[in-house]
């Protein structure tokens, strides 16, 4: 090649590059593993995709440990002396540093803020308001549920409708408990109004789910007043709770015939399930139901080393609560000599075989991948019940009982007795608060509920609940033997009682401390709350 040619070519290349204008197209890179805002919230399919994760991933950290650690651990259904995700709650020694408390706070606010993202995203869309409301209702149901938890647990918390405001300024005051409940109720009322009659996809919410949840919310707030020992509940809220329960029960939901069937993988989204977290079989971390790993008694159940439940046990207190013939015990707790056909199927089922001195968790325990291909390590593939029809029955009964000492309301009795008959028990002819408390505890045991029952009672009979918790004798571990066939607890006199160091039982136990790192970042959390300024008008035509 001629020298002059090469030089010319190079000079041309050099000049063309050095002189080229700033090429912005080269700098516009489109992602392949994400979707950007510009391409989303256009169609109903987008709305469905946006609301779907509100049924699983955002609840993961809540479901992982706190659901039962708080709901059942703190109410002393569970006794787990070495599991730091349970005993700080059961021992009443949790602090703002307790891990599951911190992550549950974060998780509940993830539910709130991701619901906000969905609500704001859909509101900004160009579709009809009917379509918008249907999906906004779904997100508001989630947000309302999360705020019910937050209000029940921490009392005064921050109400947020847009995370962007908190990004700009996270140093904000809390809002008072009653405003938080009111906010949750308004969300749920909106959901009751705009959710569809029937679930558009199996497992999705309906307006009856929202009514069911409303019956719980109204019951919670009914006792709330300035006097925690007032002894009475607000009749208007009791009436609303009853009306909401009636609406919910009028929907398509039916209770299952067999209690034990409720907790089988194949019965996810059964007729009784009104709201359940939808975990993904073989799903990755974040959309899995990890509870079995914490409950399973040993690795021979799960088939892997994720089986940490040997020391996660029924408290004596809850074992004493079972009636002799209550079938629900076998479905909730596994005792020595109990047999479960669905576990270890290949070897003819699983028979619990250890000393009869302790009782472990059954509900949520389903076996290994060999029993069901949907099960994998740290993933039971079971839905997590957040609301089922049985609870709404009990809500109805509780609302009907109201401020009376007892009731023989036929419908209330019918509902409670349906559950009792299903459990293999005799029917009741009248109901006291004690009857309903007992029924709730047993029916919903290990479904993360009982502590909230106690909290709601503490709003108007605080001293009674303090006495009740004191009576659970959490500080003395009495050795027992357990007869599985008859649900009978006997004190074992050959072994000594052992002490357990527990925190003080006083009025402070009904509120959890804010996570310490949150208070460090927002010191106003511990300042006095400021009333919330409600922007939207309240829905008033719900029960017309």
């Amino acid at each position, binding site marked *: 090649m001629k020298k002059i040619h090469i030089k010319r070519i190079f000079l041309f290349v050099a000049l063309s590059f050095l002189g080229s204008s700033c090429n912005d197209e080269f700098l516009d890179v489109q992602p392949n593993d994400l979707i950007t805002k510009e391409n989303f919230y256009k169609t109903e399919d987008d709305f469905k995709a946006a609301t779907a994760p509100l049924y699983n991933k955002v609840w993961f950290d809540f479901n992982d440990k706190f659901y039962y650690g708080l709901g059942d651990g703190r109410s002393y259904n569970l006794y787990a002396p070495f599991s730091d995700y349970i005993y700080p709650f059961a021992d009443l020694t949790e602090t703002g*540093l307790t891990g599951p408390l911190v992550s549950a706070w974060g998780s509940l606010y993830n539910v709130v803020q991701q619901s906000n993202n969905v609500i704001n995203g859909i509101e900004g869309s160009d579709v009809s308001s009917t379509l918008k409301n249907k999906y906004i209702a779904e997100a508001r149901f989630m947000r309302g549920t999360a705020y019910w938890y937050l209000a029940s647990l921490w009392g005064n918390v921050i109400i947020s409708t847009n995370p962007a405001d908190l990004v700009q300024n996270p140093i904000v005051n809390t809002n008072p408990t009653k405003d938080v409940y009111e906010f949750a109720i308004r969300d749920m009322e909106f959901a009751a109004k705009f959710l569809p009659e029937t679930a558009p996809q199996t497992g999705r919410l309906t307006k009856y789910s929202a009514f069911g949840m409303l019956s719980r919310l109204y019951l919670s707030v009914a006792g709330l007043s300035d006097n925690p020992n007032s002894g009475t509940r607000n009749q208007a809220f009791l009436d609303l709770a009853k009306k909401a329960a009636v609406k919910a029960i009028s929907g398509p939901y039916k209770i299952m015939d067999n209690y034990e069937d409720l907790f089988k993988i194949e019965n996810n989204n059964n007729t009784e399930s009104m709201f359940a977290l939808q975990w993904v079989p073989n*799903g990755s971390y974040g959309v899995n139901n990890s509870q079995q790993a914490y409950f399973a008694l040993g690795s021979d159940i799960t088939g892997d080393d994720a089986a940490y439940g040997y020391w996660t046990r029924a408290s004596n207190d809850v074992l004493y609560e079972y009636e002799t013939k209550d079938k629900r015990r076998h479905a909730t707790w596994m005792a020595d000599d109990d047999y479960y056909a669905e576990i270890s199927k290949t070897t003819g089922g699983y028979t619990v075989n250890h000393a009869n001195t302790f009782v472990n968790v059954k509900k949520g325990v389903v076996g290994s991948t060999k029993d069901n291909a949907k099960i994998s390590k740290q993933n039971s593939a079971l839905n997590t019940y957040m609301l089922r029809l049985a609870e709404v029955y009990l809500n109805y009964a509780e609302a009907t009982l109201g401020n009376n000492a007892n009731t023989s309301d036929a419908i209330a009795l019918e509902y409670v007795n349906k559950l009792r008959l299903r459990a293999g028990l005799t029917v009741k002819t009248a109901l006291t608060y004690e009857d309903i408390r007992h029924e709730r505890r047993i029916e919903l045991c290990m479904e993360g509920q009982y502590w909230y029952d106690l909290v709601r009672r503490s709003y108007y009979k605080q001293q009674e609940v303090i006495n009740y918790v004191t009576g659970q004798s959490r500080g003395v571990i009495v050795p027992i033997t357990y007869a599985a066939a008859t649900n009978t607890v006997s004190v074992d006199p050959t072994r000594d009682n052992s002490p357990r160091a527990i925190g003080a039982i006083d009025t402070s136990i009904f509120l959890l401390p804010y996570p310490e790192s949150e208070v460090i970042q927002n010191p106003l959390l511990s300042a006095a709350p400021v009333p919330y300024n409600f922007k939207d008008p309240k829905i008033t035509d719900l029960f017309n």
Partner: protein
Amino acid sequence: MTNFLFFKGGHIKQLGFTVLMFLFSAYMSSQTTVSGVVSDGKGPIPGVSILVQGTKNSTATDFDGTYTLSNVPENAMIVFSFIGYKTQTVAIAGRKKIDLVLIEDLKTLDEVVVVGYGTMKRKDLTGSVSTVTSKAVTQSVTTSIEQLLQGRAAGVQVSANSGAPGASSSVSIRGISSINSGTQPIYVIDGVVIDPNANSNPYVINNINNNPISVINPADIVSIDILKDASATAIYGSRASNGVIMVTTKRGKKGDLALTFDGYVGWQEIPKQLNVLNLQEYGNLKNTRSKLGIVEKDATFIRTDLLGEGTDWQNEMFNQALIQNYNLSASGGSDKSTYFMGVGYMDQGGIAVGSSFSRFNLTSNLESQVKDYFKVGLNFALSNTKQVTTLNDGSLILTALRQTPNVAVRSADGSFDGPDTDQFVQNNPIGLAFIRDNNNEGVGLRANTYAEIKFAKGLTFKTLYSLDYGFNSAYTFDPSYTFGQIKNVNRLGTRTKSNSKNWIWNNVLNYTHDFGKHSINAMLGQEAQENHWENLYGSISGYLTNTSTDLALGDQNTAAVNNHSLSSSLSSYFGRLFYSFDDKYLLTATVRRDGSSKFAEENRWGWFPSAAFAWKVSNEDFLKQNKVINNLKLRMSWGAVGNQNVPNYAYTSTYNSVATANWGTGLLASNTANPELTWETTYSSNIGIDLGLFHNRIELVADVYYKKTDDLLNILALPNFVGISGQGSTSAPWYNIGDLENKGFELALNTINIQNKEFSWTSNIVFSMNKNKVLSLNNESGNYPGKVQQGSDETVITRTAVGQPISQFYGYKVIGRFEKATDFYYKDAAGNVLPTALPKDMKISENGAWIGDYIFEDSNKDGVIDEKDLQYIGNPLPKFTFGITNTFTYKGFDMSIFLDGSYGNDVVNYQRRWLENPRENTNLLDTALGYAQLGLIDPNGPNDYRNVQIVGGDANMPRIAASSAASTSNYRFSDRFVEDGSFVRIKNISVAYNLPSSFVSKIGLAGVKVYSNMQNIMTFTKYSGYDPAVGTLNNSALLSGIDNGRYPSPRITTLGVNVKF
């Protein structure tokens, strides 16, 4: 060094002849005395070594350059040698006075330094550049090049994040100038940019084992130039804010084939073991704990006095491990073309079971002057690395320390044993290491090709296309096993394939011209680059056996698959002008403009200018004849550099897919957008001095600098109620969150202490001092927490706040212990008796605050210990660091001793929070047994705090409490766990012996050297953990100086040989 070898080689070759000559002359000639003056044109040179050839008769010039040498044969030859000058041999030829002018060896003065997009003579430098040569490679055991920089380059701080084979290091140049956004400098290897920050893609973050620099074979390196001030780095614009490390690899040299083989074999061991409980101690403590109701009674510990030592898990897990390294290289060339080829293999076993790293390298380069105006070249480097980390590095040390001594490694039949329960126990790590698969293999290809054309005298154009491809495969397999009571039946296999493709094309026009006293070098360039990364992941379970582990053998119903990809691009224009007047006044100005795909269109482009001025005072007339100062240069510079290390699309809202059970894919908001996001910019000023005294026998380079970083890029610190933490959260937005400054002083001193014919001693001292301060933060709380998660405990360990250096340890302060009842009260200034502040929600009771518990400082004096009492309790940043190398040569021997050290930094020994807490269920450090023992003052009295006293235990330890609340309180994060991390370490001792060339040439070789290196020989420190040099945790600048079970760096001893053919 080269001079020295040259000199010696020449000497030995003539040995036979001169011995004869000597014998002859001794017989024939008479003796004489010779004297004279040695100078270099400017003036006399002191310390020149003068030797009568073939004898031991030698002397050196004194301060005036004069010498006298007696008893010299009249016909002898005298050898004059001095470092930096050419060695000269002069025949006496009967003279009595010989004055000699030594000629400077231009090779050293014309030393070339690699700067961005070109090279410069060191004497022309206006910016601040440190150089580490390949000598450092031979004087240490180096598996990755960044390890060479610690203590050898002023202003550079390096600490290994883990001692595991192939793990990464934290490198900071002149302090930490970014908070979160990639604090590592970029590496430019033969013109190819490797950015360790960019390679940490969001799907494999926090993997300390992932070290992109480890693919480079240190043996291929000629020199490493560290560009430190903005004048030097600004030409790399948007990516240079943490400094630039230029790596030059070996090139071909004109001449006959030169073949070199180098190989060494070595042994590695853990430098230190921590004292943990043996079986008896563990059993006794467990009995104590069961009495307190913390654990159930363990029947095996009824008679602990009958028990032996039990299993020593540190002994079991850490073994001597082999390291071996072999390199073969060939180079040569004709007048027009040169070539270099190298092949290397390194295999480093881990001192911990189940860890290793091996690397195979193939490199070559060719350059050819195809026409007198046209040059082309090719660089090529292939690497194949294999890394085994059977046990997760993070849990390895913890397992070794926590596994209890009552668990056996193997049962009597030789199979692996395990704990006798599957609850709250550690698995058998040795068993897992043997049967579990977790390894990865990477193939990296780094190549560039270039053409350079000379249009006219001084005007050239160079175009260079370079690529950096990486292909990685990661394999894991969890087999089924039964270790004691721990059983795993579910076999799980995963495969991850990822590849990265990065390319850069740059075009540079260069012009140099000298006219009169003026000299100009102008450069203009354009560059485009693109990074792409993608992966493919699959997992499956349901294998029938443990033997073949490909996914094909799993149950297809359990298969899961995933894939991600990322791309980013950068477009740049840059120029540099160098002007020199009379070789006295030097000026460099650069400017660069970068556009990045990581920012929104309107914030995309950034300008990065710099200017520097140098004055060569020693070339002024008034210094030219100075006898003491032979080189004095003053340097001044200012410039701006940027940082763009944020994830792609941080400026816009994005949605991630989330699996659902029945409804198809869901989408969840994955970030909080910040369209305002823009460059982080560091403005830095530098003043430096280069000083050479006594003909460079003393060389001093000193710099002071001030750096201010504006618009720091970081994830905004927000409370969790914004919805930014845990599964299903949106990540907090990336923001330009504030400003910080670094100012410092650094110094490098090279001295030739003794230099004569047979013995020389040279020293190299490097000293760095840096002060960091956060100037502003724009979030409301004005601080950033650094959190560490341990199990379900998440604790704020550090705080980064305005007015403080970054990453300060932040916790409670222990001011004493409740020794007696009166400690629960104190008298204030007015004489009122007040209760001592107790932790929030705690009262005086055995399950609350009690005798033997810590008293924490109530810093806000509100009478309660809560989060408002958190305070600064330590600083992980050293006051200064230093490195000292002393090199001695004696005849064929060569020895160097390298020390490095750090002063004034604190280290958090974080695991002591658990391993020293006697209440914990795991095995513990033996210091845990020092808990305060309580007794009743009046044995018949009540168990009331007024009747309780401390009767034994360590004076600084709290009691063992039945209540978890008391234990949580005592073991909260406090200054108890902050230790002095200052240290001095004998880092390396290397000894080498060059075989006499007379012997070597007889066997047909050009040179043979045998050598031995010892590394991490001894550390002097007060720190109680394994190793005070801990690096950062999770690659986060907010978590510096935290030892959370870090894999210690091994002690290594090697033996090697280097043969030149």
